[in-house]
């Protein structure tokens, strides 16, 4: 539990707080983005724990026996960041569609309006 993993969990919790506390859909999409950044930081922090150098063979660090940072979590985070972009882009267009259709982004009003539609 070093500085990096603890810090990233804090940012994850901040995102979670945003999702729970905010009623405006736009703010919830922003909190989702914060949440995902926290998770990505945690994944890289897990690989970094032992210190070391960037996992790229170059002429200054030519030997693979040098103490490299673990490249696998970085590969996972690369994929995760792009997935979060895909989800955020779609969520924002959805938010714009809801705003055009219902004129408001306040989840309390939206759920209640959907509730009215239901019963």
């Amino acid at each position, binding site marked *: 539990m070093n500085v990096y993993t603890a810090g990233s969990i804090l*940012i994850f919790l901040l995102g979670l*707080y945003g999702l729970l506390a905010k009623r*405006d859909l736009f*703010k919830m999409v*922003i909190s989702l983005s914060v949440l995902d*950044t926290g998770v990505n930081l945690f994944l890289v922090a897990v690989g970094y724990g032992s210190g070391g150098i960037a996992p790229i063979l170059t002429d200054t660090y030519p030997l693979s026996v040098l103490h490299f940072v673990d490249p696998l979590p*970085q590969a996972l985070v*690369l994929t995760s960041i792009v997935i979060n972009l895909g989800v955020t882009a779609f969520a924002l267009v959805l938010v714009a569609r809801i705003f055009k259709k219902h*004129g408001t982004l306040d989840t309390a009003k939206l759920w209640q309006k959907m509730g009215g539609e239901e019963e």
Partner: protein
Amino acid sequence: MSGLDAIAIVVFAWIFLTGLIAIEAKERFTSVLMLSAMGLGAAFLFAWMRAPDVAMTEAVIGAGLTSAIFLLVLLRMKRGGEDAHE
């Protein structure tokens, strides 16, 4: 707690602060700016944790494209008449 980690703590504080403002800001425009600032902090931290690939991705996608898409949608919604702030 070596000196190096102190820098990481400062950047974590920066990310936490900008994230908090992004969530709590009244004006949506400021929260998008703060989100982009947070992306920048995250990109620095990835580079600090010896992950250049991820730092570049976070800078280009996290700070760059995500904020661009947020702003475009915000401009679109602004044009679509006044919205009810909560």
